[in-house]
């Protein structure tokens, strides 16, 4: 009882804060989301599902899944390496390294596509070499994956680094003293400790990988049924005055946020016991 009163605000304040938070999220997230779903269902469920079943929509969904399935694991491995090096060791130039990892956040999506054109475009540094050897990077799947990896590069690392820094290295050091190998230490101590950050990182990375528009738009070439990802396909459908279909595809992407909900609930349920024990510590 005492614990509650010392950590909680009066009922009135609590209610007020919840109201403010709800209105803020309602205005900025709820309203746009409702708009998207309202437009998608404007002509009834039949039109909605028909729109999603079109061959071009399916091709776009497939390409988006492929892209995310390649980009997310790459960034996962990178994120784990980077956070291990940064959180578990002290070395010079650490802030610089961290800033460089953050950099893709600050690059305009317009530019993150353009840099790959400057590198691999026909008029770019490696373009003529690639063309000579018949390697297609740009305006094909590899280019789309590259741009996506670039845009989502910091997500996993960004989530893991602060968490692992806060957790320190005492546990790992103790385990190593007791004779555990580096791998054992990683699998049995670091990874379980970092699982929440890892999950957030992967989910955000995945959401952004699937939703990225600007950068991919520059390197895709917009070939219908071949190099259009879901966000690009949404734009095309919208430009064809096919509003229902455009928003129908968009609802699939919005539903990704619900996937976050499922994943989080699953993990909470699975680790509930463990969570309670750590909370009590």
């Amino acid at each position: 009882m005492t614990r509650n009163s010392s950590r909680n605000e009066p009922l009135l304040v609590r209610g007020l804060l919840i109201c403010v938070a709800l209105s803020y999220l309602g205005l900025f997230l709820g309203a746009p989301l409702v708009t998207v779903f309202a437009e998608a269902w404007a002509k009834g469920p039949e039109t909605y599902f028909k729109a999603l079943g079109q061959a071009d929509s399916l091709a776009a969904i497939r390409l988006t899944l492929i892209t995310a399935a390649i980009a997310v694991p790459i960034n996962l491995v990178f994120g784990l390496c980077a956070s291990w090096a940064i959180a578990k060791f002290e070395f010079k130039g650490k802030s610089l390294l961290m800033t460089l990892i953050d950099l893709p956040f600050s690059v305009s999506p317009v530019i993150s596509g353009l840099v790959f054109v400057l590198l691999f475009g026909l008029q770019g540094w490696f373009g003529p070499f690639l063309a000579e050897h018949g390697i297609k990077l740009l305006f094909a799947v590899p280019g789309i994956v590259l741009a996506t990896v670039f845009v989502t590069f910091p997500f996993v690392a960004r989530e893991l680094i602060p968490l692992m820094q806060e957790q320190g290295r005492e546990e790992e050091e103790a385990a190593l003293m007791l004779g555990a190998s580096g791998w054992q230490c990683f699998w049995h101590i670091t990874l379980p400790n970092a699982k929440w950050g890892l999950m957030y990182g992967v989910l955000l990375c995945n959401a952004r990988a699937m939703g990225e528009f600007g950068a991919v738009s520059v390197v895709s070439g917009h070939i219908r049924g071949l190099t259009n990802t879901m966000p690009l396909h949404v734009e095309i459908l919208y430009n064809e005055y096919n509003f229902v279909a455009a928003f129908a595809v968009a609802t699939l992407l919005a539903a990704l946020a619900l996937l976050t909900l499922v994943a989080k609930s699953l993990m909470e349920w699975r680790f509930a016991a463990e969570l309670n024990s750590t909370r009590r510590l």
Partner: protein
Amino acid sequence: MTVLAHRFREPSVIPGFGITLGVTLAALGLVVLIPLSALFLKAAGLGFSGFIATAFDSRAMAAYGLSFGAALVAALVNLFFGTLVAWVLVRYRFAGKRLLDALIDLPFALPTAVAGIALTTLFAPNGAFGAFLEPLGIKVAFTRLGVILAMIFIGLPFVVRSVQPVLEDLESEVEEAAASLGASRLQTLWLVVLPSLLPALISGFALAFVRAVGEYGSIIFIAGNMPGQTEIAPLLIIIKLEQYNYAGATAIASVMLIISFVLLFVINRLQHWRQSRMEGR
């Protein structure tokens, strides 16, 4: 190698420094640094005076002013309300909390163009909110206010998601101790809770800010795109590209990138310094 490594890092019993840092640097180089260097080299092709003339003409300055100014306002709004939302989500229990929690990631998953269209639909003079605001003399769509609105939307997850885990980890004992020592609730919040949230607040703010600066996809729908008034810097880059002026486009991109980089670096440096001081190093 070991001798060299020891010179710039403190010794530690934890293994794997070489390999993880190696992977990190290799990935960083391939995915981020080489592509971005292509950007700067292209801009350098203009020569010093050409670069200055392109990157700092009056129209470009107005565009930077809008992009950075609106991003600052949007990030401040997100800082305040984002903290509040994180607080409500972590500390209070209410119906629909989980769904709300999942919705936070929506701006990542939803393609920026869809967000722009949805926001414009709502805030245009004939939209659900616009029709209500218009008689009050408040114009949102096709004004600077619209730019800020879109930036708030896309930057929303950053502050919430960086504050949330820290709040979850915050030990209740500290607050209880402060309360039992006679501190009022406000004093506890201001003197105990806020300082421990500070790093997360700053990094969330910084990321929301730099992300908003570069945003293009959603803003072009809701801004009027009038030169000197509602023309954002990334649009200026696109305009240069439409004229096949790659060097001019990269010049503006370089300026934006350098400013964002310096900002992120200063913040990371501050965090690092603060952390070392707290650990007594």
